[in-house]
Protein backbone atom coordinates (compact mmCIF):
# COMPACT_ATOMS: atom_id res chain seq x y z
CA UNK A 1 0.00 0.00 0.00
CA UNK A 2 2.79 2.41 0.96
CA UNK A 3 4.63 1.57 -2.24
CA UNK A 4 1.53 2.32 -4.27
CA UNK A 5 1.11 5.66 -2.51
CA UNK A 6 4.72 6.66 -3.15
CA UNK A 7 4.43 5.62 -6.79
CA UNK A 8 1.29 7.68 -7.17
CA UNK A 9 2.88 10.69 -5.51
CA UNK A 10 5.94 10.55 -7.77
CA UNK A 11 3.69 10.20 -10.81
CA UNK A 12 1.62 13.15 -9.66
CA UNK A 13 4.65 15.40 -9.17
CA UNK A 14 6.04 14.39 -12.58
CA UNK A 15 2.72 15.12 -14.27
CA UNK A 16 2.57 18.53 -12.63
CA UNK A 17 6.16 19.27 -13.62
CA UNK A 18 5.60 18.40 -17.26
CA UNK A 19 2.22 20.16 -17.19
CA UNK A 20 3.76 23.36 -15.85
CA UNK A 21 6.49 23.13 -18.49
CA UNK A 22 3.88 22.82 -21.23
CA UNK A 23 1.86 25.74 -19.89
CA UNK A 24 4.90 27.96 -19.60
CA UNK A 25 6.29 26.79 -22.93
CA UNK A 26 3.00 27.47 -24.72
CA UNK A 27 3.01 31.08 -23.61
CA UNK A 28 6.66 31.37 -24.60
CA UNK A 29 5.92 30.13 -28.10
CA UNK A 30 2.92 32.38 -28.56
CA UNK A 31 3.26 34.89 -31.35
CA UNK A 32 3.21 38.51 -30.19
CA UNK A 33 5.69 39.23 -27.41
CA UNK A 34 4.53 39.93 -23.88
CA UNK A 35 6.52 43.16 -23.99
CA UNK A 36 4.31 44.48 -26.78
CA UNK A 37 1.22 43.48 -24.77
CA UNK A 38 2.53 45.30 -21.70
CA UNK A 39 3.60 48.40 -23.60
CA UNK A 40 0.44 48.70 -25.62
CA UNK A 41 0.41 49.28 -29.39
CA UNK A 42 2.53 52.39 -29.74
CA UNK A 43 5.75 51.75 -27.83
CA UNK A 44 9.14 52.70 -29.28
CA UNK A 45 11.81 50.05 -29.57
CA UNK A 46 13.79 51.46 -26.65
CA UNK A 47 10.72 51.39 -24.44
CA UNK A 48 10.15 47.78 -25.48
CA UNK A 49 13.75 47.00 -24.71
CA UNK A 50 13.49 48.35 -21.19
CA UNK A 51 10.28 46.44 -20.58
CA UNK A 52 11.92 43.28 -21.86
CA UNK A 53 14.71 43.89 -19.41
CA UNK A 54 12.30 44.52 -16.53
CA UNK A 55 10.42 41.30 -17.23
CA UNK A 56 13.65 39.32 -17.72
CA UNK A 57 12.50 38.56 -21.23
CA UNK A 58 16.05 38.57 -22.53
CA UNK A 59 17.09 35.56 -20.47
CA UNK A 60 17.18 32.12 -22.07
CA UNK A 61 13.98 30.06 -21.89
CA UNK A 62 15.08 27.53 -19.30
CA UNK A 63 16.36 30.21 -16.94
CA UNK A 64 13.05 31.98 -17.17
CA UNK A 65 11.08 28.74 -16.70
CA UNK A 66 13.19 27.90 -13.68
CA UNK A 67 12.66 31.37 -12.18
CA UNK A 68 8.94 31.06 -12.75
CA UNK A 69 8.74 27.59 -11.28
CA UNK A 70 10.82 28.65 -8.29
CA UNK A 71 8.43 31.55 -7.76
CA UNK A 72 5.38 29.29 -8.10
CA UNK A 73 6.75 26.91 -5.48
CA UNK A 74 7.20 29.88 -3.16
CA UNK A 75 3.64 31.05 -3.71
CA UNK A 76 4.53 33.71 -6.29
CA UNK A 77 2.57 33.17 -9.48
CA UNK A 78 4.19 36.05 -11.36
CA UNK A 79 3.01 39.56 -12.20
CA UNK A 80 0.03 40.32 -14.36
CA UNK A 81 1.17 42.23 -17.46
CA UNK A 82 -2.12 44.07 -17.62
CA UNK A 83 -2.79 45.01 -14.01
CA UNK A 84 0.92 45.26 -13.07
CA UNK A 85 0.19 43.47 -9.84
CA UNK A 86 1.15 40.05 -8.49
CA UNK A 87 -1.26 37.43 -9.83
CA UNK A 88 -1.48 35.91 -6.36
CA UNK A 89 -2.95 39.16 -5.09
CA UNK A 90 -5.43 39.36 -7.95
CA UNK A 91 -6.57 35.80 -7.30
CA UNK A 92 -6.76 35.92 -3.53
CA UNK A 93 -10.27 37.37 -3.39
CA UNK A 94 -11.51 35.08 -6.17
CA UNK A 95 -10.33 31.64 -5.16
CA UNK A 96 -12.91 31.15 -2.42
CA UNK A 97 -15.79 31.92 -4.78
CA UNK A 98 -14.59 29.26 -7.17
CA UNK A 99 -13.97 26.72 -4.43
CA UNK A 100 -17.43 27.37 -2.98
CA UNK A 101 -19.06 26.90 -6.37
CA UNK A 102 -17.16 23.75 -7.32
CA UNK A 103 -17.59 22.06 -3.93
CA UNK A 104 -21.28 22.94 -3.89
CA UNK A 105 -21.69 21.45 -7.36
CA UNK A 106 -19.62 18.38 -6.44
CA UNK A 107 -21.86 17.70 -3.42
CA UNK A 108 -24.95 18.02 -5.63
CA UNK A 109 -23.43 15.62 -8.14
CA UNK A 110 -22.43 13.00 -5.58
CA UNK A 111 -25.68 12.96 -3.63
CA UNK A 112 -28.07 13.63 -6.51
CA UNK A 113 -26.31 11.38 -8.98
CA UNK A 114 -26.08 8.40 -6.65
CA UNK A 115 -29.63 8.74 -5.35
CA UNK A 116 -31.15 9.17 -8.81
CA UNK A 117 -29.04 6.36 -10.24
CA UNK A 118 -30.10 4.07 -7.41
CA UNK A 119 -33.76 4.91 -7.89
CA UNK A 120 -33.44 4.45 -11.64
CA UNK A 121 -31.97 1.00 -11.09
CA UNK A 122 -34.35 -0.17 -8.35
CA UNK A 123 -37.73 1.36 -9.17
CA UNK A 124 -39.43 0.21 -12.31
CA UNK A 125 -41.82 3.07 -13.23
CA UNK A 126 -39.95 5.92 -11.58
CA UNK A 127 -36.78 4.47 -13.08
CA UNK A 128 -38.01 4.98 -16.63
CA UNK A 129 -38.81 8.63 -15.91
CA UNK A 130 -35.48 9.25 -14.21
CA UNK A 131 -33.55 7.49 -16.95
CA UNK A 132 -35.20 9.60 -19.63
CA UNK A 133 -34.55 12.74 -17.60
CA UNK A 134 -30.92 11.79 -17.22
CA UNK A 135 -30.45 11.22 -20.96
CA UNK A 136 -31.66 14.75 -21.60
CA UNK A 137 -29.79 16.23 -18.63
CA UNK A 138 -26.58 14.68 -19.89
CA UNK A 139 -26.85 16.72 -23.07
CA UNK A 140 -27.50 20.09 -21.41
CA UNK A 141 -24.31 22.17 -21.42
CA UNK A 142 -23.75 24.28 -18.31
CA UNK A 143 -24.28 27.55 -20.14
CA UNK A 144 -27.62 26.42 -21.54
CA UNK A 145 -28.66 25.24 -18.07
CA UNK A 146 -27.54 28.66 -16.78
CA UNK A 147 -29.73 30.67 -19.13
CA UNK A 148 -32.76 28.47 -18.49
CA UNK A 149 -32.28 28.73 -14.72
CA UNK A 150 -31.77 32.49 -14.91
CA UNK A 151 -34.79 32.99 -17.07
CA UNK A 152 -37.06 30.84 -14.91
CA UNK A 153 -35.85 31.23 -11.32
CA UNK A 154 -34.17 34.64 -11.40
CA UNK A 155 -36.23 36.63 -13.91
CA UNK A 156 -39.70 35.08 -13.76
CA UNK A 157 -39.96 33.72 -10.22
CA UNK A 158 -37.30 35.99 -8.66
CA UNK A 159 -36.33 33.26 -6.16
CA UNK A 160 -32.62 33.58 -6.71
CA UNK A 161 -30.33 36.39 -7.88
CA UNK A 162 -29.16 36.23 -11.51
CA UNK A 163 -25.61 37.42 -10.89
CA UNK A 164 -22.96 38.52 -8.41
CA UNK A 165 -21.85 36.88 -5.18
CA UNK A 166 -23.39 37.07 -1.76
CA UNK A 167 -22.00 37.76 1.68
CA UNK A 168 -21.83 35.34 4.59
CA UNK A 169 -22.24 31.60 4.23
CA UNK A 170 -25.98 31.66 3.64
CA UNK A 171 -25.74 34.66 1.36
CA UNK A 172 -23.17 32.72 -0.66
CA UNK A 173 -25.38 29.66 -0.62
CA UNK A 174 -28.30 31.66 -1.92
CA UNK A 175 -26.27 33.29 -4.67
CA UNK A 176 -24.49 30.10 -5.63
CA UNK A 177 -27.52 27.82 -5.83
CA UNK A 178 -28.37 28.47 -9.48
CA UNK A 179 -24.71 28.44 -10.61
CA UNK A 180 -24.08 25.20 -8.74
CA UNK A 181 -27.13 23.56 -10.32
CA UNK A 182 -26.08 24.75 -13.78
CA UNK A 183 -22.58 23.41 -13.22
CA UNK A 184 -23.77 20.13 -11.71
CA UNK A 185 -26.61 19.23 -14.07
CA UNK A 186 -24.95 17.28 -16.87
CA UNK A 187 -22.43 15.65 -14.53
CA UNK A 188 -25.19 14.72 -12.15
CA UNK A 189 -26.92 12.98 -15.04
CA UNK A 190 -23.64 11.33 -16.02
CA UNK A 191 -23.03 10.07 -12.49
CA UNK A 192 -26.65 8.95 -12.29
CA UNK A 193 -26.39 6.89 -15.45
CA UNK A 194 -23.14 5.40 -14.26
CA UNK A 195 -24.65 4.56 -10.88
CA UNK A 196 -27.65 2.96 -12.53
CA UNK A 197 -25.47 0.75 -14.70
CA UNK A 198 -23.18 -0.17 -11.81
CA UNK A 199 -26.09 -0.93 -9.46
CA UNK A 200 -27.79 -3.07 -12.11
CA UNK A 201 -24.58 -5.00 -12.56
CA UNK A 202 -24.09 -5.54 -8.83
CA UNK A 203 -27.73 -6.51 -8.31
CA UNK A 204 -27.21 -9.46 -10.63
CA UNK A 205 -24.19 -10.68 -8.69
CA UNK A 206 -24.09 -13.75 -6.49
CA UNK A 207 -23.29 -11.96 -3.23
CA UNK A 208 -26.75 -10.38 -3.39
CA UNK A 209 -28.31 -13.83 -3.62
CA UNK A 210 -26.34 -14.92 -0.56
CA UNK A 211 -27.50 -11.92 1.44
CA UNK A 212 -31.10 -12.53 0.42
CA UNK A 213 -30.87 -16.18 1.36
CA UNK A 214 -29.78 -15.12 4.84
CA UNK A 215 -32.82 -12.95 5.40
CA UNK A 216 -30.91 -9.66 5.37
CA UNK A 217 -33.25 -6.67 5.12
CA UNK A 218 -33.57 -5.35 1.54
CA UNK A 219 -32.34 -1.95 2.71
CA UNK A 220 -29.12 -3.48 4.02
CA UNK A 221 -28.71 -5.68 0.97
CA UNK A 222 -28.76 -2.53 -1.16
CA UNK A 223 -26.38 -0.51 0.99
CA UNK A 224 -23.90 -3.25 1.93
CA UNK A 225 -23.88 -5.55 -1.05
CA UNK A 226 -24.97 -3.40 -3.99
CA UNK A 227 -24.15 0.27 -3.44
CA UNK A 228 -20.93 -0.41 -1.58
CA UNK A 229 -19.65 -2.47 -4.51
CA UNK A 230 -21.08 -0.14 -7.15
CA UNK A 231 -19.13 2.79 -5.69
CA UNK A 232 -15.95 1.29 -7.11
CA UNK A 233 -16.76 1.74 -10.82
CA UNK A 234 -18.41 5.07 -10.00
CA UNK A 235 -15.28 6.53 -8.44
CA UNK A 236 -13.04 4.97 -11.08
CA UNK A 237 -14.49 7.18 -13.79
CA UNK A 238 -15.06 10.25 -11.64
CA UNK A 239 -11.84 11.76 -13.05
CA UNK A 240 -13.82 12.72 -16.13
CA UNK A 241 -16.32 14.47 -13.87
CA UNK A 242 -13.60 16.43 -12.12
CA UNK A 243 -12.22 17.61 -15.47
CA UNK A 244 -15.75 18.53 -16.52
CA UNK A 245 -16.31 20.52 -13.32
CA UNK A 246 -13.11 22.49 -13.81
CA UNK A 247 -13.95 23.34 -17.40
CA UNK A 248 -17.60 23.98 -16.56
CA UNK A 249 -16.62 26.30 -13.73
CA UNK A 250 -15.10 28.73 -16.24
CA UNK A 251 -18.32 28.85 -18.22
CA UNK A 252 -20.67 29.08 -15.26
CA UNK A 253 -18.73 31.88 -13.59
CA UNK A 254 -18.97 33.81 -16.83
CA UNK A 255 -22.69 33.07 -17.17
CA UNK A 256 -23.54 34.26 -13.66
CA UNK A 257 -20.91 36.99 -13.45
CA UNK A 258 -19.21 35.32 -10.53
CA UNK A 259 -15.91 36.84 -9.57
CA UNK A 260 -13.77 33.72 -9.52
CA UNK A 261 -10.82 31.99 -11.18
CA UNK A 262 -12.83 31.09 -14.26
CA UNK A 263 -14.03 34.56 -15.13
CA UNK A 264 -10.52 35.84 -14.40
CA UNK A 265 -9.12 33.31 -16.87
CA UNK A 266 -11.56 34.44 -19.56
CA UNK A 267 -10.50 38.06 -19.02
CA UNK A 268 -6.83 37.16 -19.05
CA UNK A 269 -7.23 35.24 -22.31
CA UNK A 270 -9.07 38.15 -23.91
CA UNK A 271 -6.35 40.59 -22.82
CA UNK A 272 -3.50 38.21 -23.67
CA UNK A 273 -2.33 38.57 -20.08
CA UNK A 274 0.05 35.63 -20.33
CA UNK A 275 1.25 35.61 -16.74
CA UNK A 276 -2.33 35.38 -15.50
CA UNK A 277 -3.28 32.70 -18.03
CA UNK A 278 -0.26 30.66 -16.98
CA UNK A 279 -1.11 31.02 -13.32
CA UNK A 280 -4.79 30.11 -13.58
CA UNK A 281 -4.16 27.28 -16.06
CA UNK A 282 -1.57 25.88 -13.67
CA UNK A 283 -3.97 26.10 -10.73
CA UNK A 284 -6.76 24.38 -12.65
CA UNK A 285 -4.50 21.61 -13.93
CA UNK A 286 -3.03 21.11 -10.46
CA UNK A 287 -6.49 20.93 -8.95
CA UNK A 288 -7.47 18.30 -11.50
CA UNK A 289 -4.34 16.20 -11.02
CA UNK A 290 -4.49 16.35 -7.22
CA UNK A 291 -8.20 15.55 -6.97
CA UNK A 292 -7.74 12.69 -9.40
CA UNK A 293 -4.84 11.40 -7.34
CA UNK A 294 -6.99 11.47 -4.23
CA UNK A 295 -9.80 9.67 -6.06
CA UNK A 296 -7.39 7.01 -7.24
CA UNK A 297 -6.07 6.36 -3.75
CA UNK A 298 -9.62 6.45 -2.39
CA UNK A 299 -10.56 3.81 -4.91
CA UNK A 300 -7.90 1.52 -3.50
CA UNK A 301 -9.50 1.86 -0.12
CA UNK A 302 -12.91 1.08 -1.57
CA UNK A 303 -11.68 -2.01 -3.36
CA UNK A 304 -9.58 -4.31 -1.18
CA UNK A 305 -8.58 -6.31 -4.25
CA UNK A 306 -6.55 -3.32 -5.46
CA UNK A 307 -4.74 -2.72 -2.21
CA UNK A 308 -1.94 -5.17 -2.68
CA UNK A 309 -1.11 -7.96 -5.05
CA UNK A 310 -2.37 -11.34 -3.91
CA UNK A 311 0.54 -13.43 -2.68
Amino acid at each position, binding site marked *: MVRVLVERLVGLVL*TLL*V*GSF*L*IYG*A*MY*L*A*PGTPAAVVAGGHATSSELQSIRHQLHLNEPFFVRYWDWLDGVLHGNLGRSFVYREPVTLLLSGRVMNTVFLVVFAALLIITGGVVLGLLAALRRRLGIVITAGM*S*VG*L*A*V*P*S*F*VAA*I*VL*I*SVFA*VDLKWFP*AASTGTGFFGQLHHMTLPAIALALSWLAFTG*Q*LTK*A*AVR*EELAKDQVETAQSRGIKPRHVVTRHVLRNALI*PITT*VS*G*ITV*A*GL*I*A*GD*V*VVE*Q*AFGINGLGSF*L*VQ*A*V*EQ*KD*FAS*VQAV*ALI*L*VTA*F*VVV*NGIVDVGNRFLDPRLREPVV
Partner: protein
Amino acid sequence: MATAAAAKEQLFPSARRRRNLDPVILAAGAFIGVLVLVAILAPWIAPYNPNAATILAANQGVSAAHWLGTDPTGRDLLSRLIWGARLSLLGPALIVLIATALGTVLAIASAWIGGLFDQLVSRVMDLLFAFPGLVLAMIAVAMFGKGLVAPVVALSIAYTPYITRVLRSAASRERSLPYVAACYVGGVSARSICSRHLLPNVFPLLLTQSTISFGSALVTLAAVSYLGLGIQPPTATWGFMVSTGQSSILAGHPAESLEAGILIVVTVVAFNLLGDRLAGRRSLQAL
Protein backbone atom coordinates in the same frame (compact mmCIF):
# COMPACT_ATOMS: atom_id res chain seq x y z
CA MET B 1 -44.52 -18.91 -46.96
CA ALA B 2 -45.76 -17.81 -43.59
CA THR B 3 -44.69 -21.06 -42.03
CA ALA B 4 -41.21 -20.80 -43.49
CA ALA B 5 -40.83 -17.37 -41.99
CA ALA B 6 -42.07 -18.65 -38.66
CA ALA B 7 -39.66 -21.54 -38.79
CA LYS B 8 -36.79 -19.23 -39.55
CA GLU B 9 -37.81 -16.99 -36.69
CA GLN B 10 -37.77 -20.02 -34.44
CA LEU B 11 -34.35 -21.15 -35.59
CA PHE B 12 -32.78 -17.69 -35.80
CA PRO B 13 -34.81 -15.55 -33.40
CA SER B 14 -32.61 -12.53 -34.01
CA ALA B 15 -32.83 -12.64 -37.80
CA ARG B 16 -35.96 -10.53 -37.95
CA ARG B 17 -34.79 -8.08 -35.35
CA ARG B 18 -31.54 -7.55 -37.15
CA ARG B 19 -33.26 -6.63 -40.38
CA ASN B 20 -35.54 -4.08 -38.71
CA LEU B 21 -33.63 -0.92 -37.88
CA ASP B 22 -33.76 0.34 -34.36
CA PRO B 23 -36.26 3.25 -34.35
CA VAL B 24 -33.99 5.28 -32.07
CA ILE B 25 -31.09 4.99 -34.50
CA LEU B 26 -33.47 5.90 -37.31
CA ALA B 27 -34.84 8.99 -35.55
CA ALA B 28 -31.49 10.27 -34.31
CA GLY B 29 -29.87 9.59 -37.68
CA ALA B 30 -32.69 11.34 -39.54
CA PHE B 31 -32.43 14.39 -37.30
CA ILE B 32 -28.68 14.64 -37.81
CA GLY B 33 -29.12 14.14 -41.55
CA VAL B 34 -31.66 16.96 -41.79
CA LEU B 35 -29.39 19.21 -39.73
CA VAL B 36 -26.43 18.58 -42.02
CA LEU B 37 -28.60 19.20 -45.06
CA VAL B 38 -29.88 22.48 -43.58
CA ALA B 39 -26.33 23.59 -42.85
CA ILE B 40 -25.21 22.85 -46.40
CA LEU B 41 -28.25 24.48 -48.00
CA ALA B 42 -28.26 27.50 -45.67
CA PRO B 43 -27.91 30.16 -48.40
CA TRP B 44 -30.96 28.76 -50.21
CA ILE B 45 -33.30 27.94 -47.36
CA ALA B 46 -32.64 30.69 -44.82
CA PRO B 47 -35.56 33.15 -45.18
CA TYR B 48 -33.46 36.25 -44.36
CA ASN B 49 -29.90 37.46 -44.39
CA PRO B 50 -28.70 36.30 -40.96
CA ASN B 51 -26.72 39.47 -40.33
CA ALA B 52 -29.18 42.06 -41.67
CA ALA B 53 -30.30 44.22 -38.76
CA THR B 54 -33.74 45.81 -38.95
CA ILE B 55 -34.06 47.91 -35.85
CA LEU B 56 -37.82 48.28 -36.33
CA ALA B 57 -38.26 44.52 -36.04
CA ALA B 58 -36.31 44.14 -32.75
CA ASN B 59 -37.23 41.46 -30.21
CA GLN B 60 -40.26 40.23 -32.09
CA GLY B 61 -42.00 37.09 -30.95
CA VAL B 62 -42.91 34.12 -33.09
CA SER B 63 -44.82 35.23 -36.21
CA ALA B 64 -45.53 34.22 -39.80
CA ALA B 65 -42.76 36.56 -40.96
CA HIS B 66 -40.26 35.43 -38.34
CA TRP B 67 -40.96 31.83 -37.40
CA LEU B 68 -38.68 31.91 -34.42
CA GLY B 69 -38.77 35.65 -33.70
CA THR B 70 -35.99 38.22 -33.93
CA ASP B 71 -33.07 39.37 -31.79
CA PRO B 72 -32.60 42.86 -30.22
CA THR B 73 -31.26 44.21 -33.50
CA GLY B 74 -34.09 42.73 -35.49
CA ARG B 75 -32.16 39.88 -37.11
CA ASP B 76 -34.22 36.82 -38.00
CA LEU B 77 -33.42 34.09 -35.45
CA LEU B 78 -34.36 31.17 -37.72
CA SER B 79 -31.94 32.41 -40.36
CA ARG B 80 -29.22 32.88 -37.77
CA LEU B 81 -29.78 29.37 -36.41
CA ILE B 82 -29.67 27.93 -39.94
CA TRP B 83 -26.44 29.74 -40.80
CA GLY B 84 -25.11 29.04 -37.33
CA ALA B 85 -25.49 25.31 -37.96
CA ARG B 86 -22.63 25.51 -40.46
CA LEU B 87 -19.81 26.46 -38.09
CA SER B 88 -21.48 24.85 -35.07
CA LEU B 89 -21.32 21.47 -36.84
CA LEU B 90 -18.18 21.97 -38.92
CA GLY B 91 -16.08 22.69 -35.82
CA PRO B 92 -16.88 19.48 -33.93
CA ALA B 93 -16.70 17.53 -37.20
CA LEU B 94 -13.15 18.70 -37.75
CA ILE B 95 -12.24 18.02 -34.13
CA VAL B 96 -13.61 14.47 -34.25
CA LEU B 97 -12.02 13.80 -37.63
CA ILE B 98 -8.57 14.93 -36.54
CA ALA B 99 -8.77 13.35 -33.09
CA THR B 100 -10.02 10.05 -34.51
CA ALA B 101 -7.36 9.94 -37.21
CA LEU B 102 -4.62 10.78 -34.74
CA GLY B 103 -6.01 8.50 -32.04
CA THR B 104 -6.43 5.54 -34.38
CA VAL B 105 -2.91 5.78 -35.75
CA LEU B 106 -1.45 6.13 -32.25
CA ALA B 107 -3.58 3.30 -30.86
CA ILE B 108 -2.79 0.82 -33.60
CA ALA B 109 0.89 1.77 -33.64
CA SER B 110 1.01 1.35 -29.84
CA ALA B 111 -0.70 -2.01 -30.01
CA TRP B 112 1.54 -3.22 -32.84
CA ILE B 113 4.89 -1.85 -31.72
CA GLY B 114 4.27 -2.17 -27.99
CA GLY B 115 7.14 -1.80 -25.53
CA LEU B 116 8.69 1.59 -24.99
CA PHE B 117 6.68 3.32 -27.72
CA ASP B 118 3.46 2.05 -26.22
CA GLN B 119 4.44 3.28 -22.78
CA LEU B 120 5.53 6.64 -24.12
CA VAL B 121 2.22 7.13 -25.93
CA SER B 122 0.19 6.19 -22.88
CA ARG B 123 2.24 8.54 -20.65
CA VAL B 124 1.64 11.41 -23.07
CA MET B 125 -2.06 10.58 -23.18
CA ASP B 126 -2.21 10.53 -19.38
CA LEU B 127 -0.61 13.95 -19.37
CA LEU B 128 -3.12 15.29 -21.88
CA PHE B 129 -5.95 13.99 -19.69
CA ALA B 130 -4.77 16.47 -17.07
CA PHE B 131 -5.78 19.36 -19.34
CA PRO B 132 -9.55 19.73 -19.54
CA GLY B 133 -10.46 20.44 -23.18
CA LEU B 134 -11.84 23.89 -22.50
CA VAL B 135 -8.72 24.96 -20.58
CA LEU B 136 -6.52 23.75 -23.44
CA ALA B 137 -8.70 25.66 -25.90
CA MET B 138 -8.39 28.82 -23.83
CA ILE B 139 -4.62 28.53 -23.69
CA ALA B 140 -4.65 28.14 -27.47
CA VAL B 141 -6.82 31.24 -27.86
CA ALA B 142 -4.47 33.19 -25.59
CA MET B 143 -1.58 32.10 -27.83
CA PHE B 144 -3.05 32.41 -31.30
CA GLY B 145 -6.09 34.60 -30.90
CA LYS B 146 -9.84 34.10 -31.15
CA GLY B 147 -11.53 32.30 -34.02
CA LEU B 148 -12.22 28.77 -35.18
CA VAL B 149 -8.70 27.49 -35.81
CA ALA B 150 -7.07 27.73 -32.39
CA PRO B 151 -9.91 26.09 -30.41
CA VAL B 152 -10.39 23.39 -33.04
CA VAL B 153 -6.71 22.45 -33.01
CA ALA B 154 -6.59 22.51 -29.20
CA LEU B 155 -9.74 20.41 -28.84
CA SER B 156 -8.52 17.93 -31.47
CA ILE B 157 -5.51 17.35 -29.25
CA ALA B 158 -7.69 17.23 -26.13
CA TYR B 159 -9.99 14.55 -27.59
CA THR B 160 -7.19 12.37 -28.96
CA PRO B 161 -6.50 10.56 -25.65
CA TYR B 162 -10.16 9.56 -25.29
CA ILE B 163 -10.03 7.84 -28.68
CA THR B 164 -6.54 6.45 -28.22
CA ARG B 165 -7.18 4.86 -24.85
CA VAL B 166 -10.27 2.94 -25.89
CA LEU B 167 -8.93 1.85 -29.27
CA ARG B 168 -5.53 0.85 -27.94
CA SER B 169 -6.89 -1.69 -25.53
CA ALA B 170 -9.19 -3.12 -28.22
CA ALA B 171 -6.38 -3.22 -30.77
CA SER B 172 -3.91 -4.87 -28.43
CA ARG B 173 -6.51 -7.47 -27.46
CA GLU B 174 -6.93 -8.20 -31.17
CA ARG B 175 -3.20 -8.20 -31.74
CA SER B 176 -2.69 -10.90 -29.13
CA LEU B 177 -5.04 -13.29 -30.96
CA PRO B 178 -3.31 -16.23 -32.62
CA TYR B 179 -4.45 -15.38 -36.15
CA VAL B 180 -2.41 -12.18 -36.10
CA ALA B 181 0.71 -14.13 -35.22
CA ALA B 182 -0.23 -16.61 -37.96
CA CYS B 183 -0.44 -13.78 -40.52
CA TYR B 184 2.88 -12.42 -39.40
CA VAL B 185 4.58 -15.78 -39.60
CA GLY B 186 2.97 -16.26 -42.99
CA GLY B 187 4.84 -13.21 -44.24
CA VAL B 188 2.05 -10.67 -44.29
CA SER B 189 3.51 -7.21 -43.79
CA ALA B 190 2.93 -5.32 -40.57
CA ARG B 191 1.21 -2.48 -42.37
CA SER B 192 -1.27 -4.73 -44.08
CA ILE B 193 -2.02 -6.68 -40.88
CA CYS B 194 -2.74 -3.37 -39.16
CA SER B 195 -4.89 -2.02 -41.95
CA ARG B 196 -6.63 -5.27 -42.95
CA HIS B 197 -7.11 -6.91 -39.55
CA LEU B 198 -6.59 -4.59 -36.61
CA LEU B 199 -8.34 -1.56 -38.08
CA PRO B 200 -11.50 -3.35 -39.29
CA ASN B 201 -11.79 -5.09 -35.93
CA VAL B 202 -11.66 -1.90 -33.89
CA PHE B 203 -13.78 -0.01 -36.41
CA PRO B 204 -17.15 -0.45 -34.64
CA LEU B 205 -15.59 0.87 -31.45
CA LEU B 206 -14.03 3.73 -33.39
CA LEU B 207 -17.43 4.65 -34.80
CA THR B 208 -19.05 4.58 -31.38
CA GLN B 209 -16.31 6.54 -29.71
CA SER B 210 -16.26 9.27 -32.36
CA THR B 211 -20.05 9.58 -32.32
CA ILE B 212 -20.06 10.11 -28.57
CA SER B 213 -17.10 12.47 -28.83
CA PHE B 214 -18.96 14.53 -31.42
CA GLY B 215 -21.65 15.57 -28.95
CA SER B 216 -19.07 16.41 -26.33
CA ALA B 217 -16.90 18.36 -28.81
CA LEU B 218 -19.95 20.29 -29.99
CA VAL B 219 -20.69 21.36 -26.41
CA THR B 220 -17.10 22.33 -25.63
CA LEU B 221 -16.72 24.32 -28.83
CA ALA B 222 -20.05 26.00 -28.17
CA ALA B 223 -18.74 26.87 -24.70
CA VAL B 224 -15.70 28.52 -26.31
CA SER B 225 -18.08 30.53 -28.52
CA TYR B 226 -20.26 31.29 -25.52
CA LEU B 227 -17.23 32.76 -23.73
CA GLY B 228 -16.71 35.00 -26.77
CA LEU B 229 -13.41 33.33 -27.66
CA GLY B 230 -14.53 31.56 -30.84
CA ILE B 231 -15.80 32.86 -34.16
CA GLN B 232 -16.32 36.59 -33.84
CA PRO B 233 -19.56 38.46 -34.53
CA PRO B 234 -21.53 39.08 -36.63
CA THR B 235 -21.09 35.46 -37.81
CA ALA B 236 -23.63 33.32 -35.99
CA THR B 237 -22.82 30.17 -34.06
CA TRP B 238 -25.23 28.50 -31.64
CA GLY B 239 -22.94 28.90 -28.67
CA PHE B 240 -22.43 32.59 -29.30
CA MET B 241 -26.17 33.11 -29.78
CA VAL B 242 -26.79 31.71 -26.28
CA SER B 243 -24.39 34.30 -24.93
CA THR B 244 -25.63 37.32 -26.95
CA GLY B 245 -29.19 36.44 -26.07
CA GLN B 246 -28.40 36.39 -22.38
CA SER B 247 -28.63 40.16 -22.00
CA SER B 248 -32.19 40.09 -23.35
CA ILE B 249 -33.23 37.47 -20.81
CA LEU B 250 -33.23 40.03 -18.04
CA ALA B 251 -35.43 42.17 -20.24
CA GLY B 252 -37.83 39.27 -20.63
CA HIS B 253 -36.84 38.12 -24.13
CA PRO B 254 -35.26 34.70 -23.67
CA ALA B 255 -36.00 33.53 -27.24
CA GLU B 256 -32.51 33.80 -28.75
CA SER B 257 -30.69 32.06 -25.89
CA LEU B 258 -33.37 29.44 -25.43
CA GLU B 259 -33.74 28.54 -29.10
CA ALA B 260 -30.02 28.20 -29.62
CA GLY B 261 -29.69 26.33 -26.32
CA ILE B 262 -32.47 23.89 -27.16
CA LEU B 263 -30.97 23.24 -30.57
CA ILE B 264 -27.63 22.41 -28.97
CA VAL B 265 -29.29 20.08 -26.45
CA VAL B 266 -31.38 18.25 -29.05
CA THR B 267 -28.40 17.81 -31.35
CA VAL B 268 -26.27 16.45 -28.54
CA VAL B 269 -29.08 14.10 -27.44
CA ALA B 270 -29.27 12.80 -31.02
CA PHE B 271 -25.54 12.10 -31.14
CA ASN B 272 -25.52 10.55 -27.66
CA LEU B 273 -28.44 8.26 -28.46
CA LEU B 274 -26.79 7.20 -31.67
CA GLY B 275 -23.51 6.54 -29.85
CA ASP B 276 -25.26 4.60 -27.07
CA ARG B 277 -27.11 2.38 -29.52
CA LEU B 278 -23.99 1.75 -31.55
CA ALA B 279 -22.19 0.82 -28.37
CA GLY B 280 -24.92 -1.70 -27.60
CA ARG B 281 -25.43 -0.09 -24.22
CA ARG B 282 -22.09 -1.12 -22.84
CA SER B 283 -22.13 2.08 -20.86
CA LEU B 284 -19.49 1.10 -18.35
CA GLN B 285 -17.09 -0.50 -20.78
CA ALA B 286 -17.30 2.44 -23.17
CA LEU B 287 -15.59 4.56 -20.58
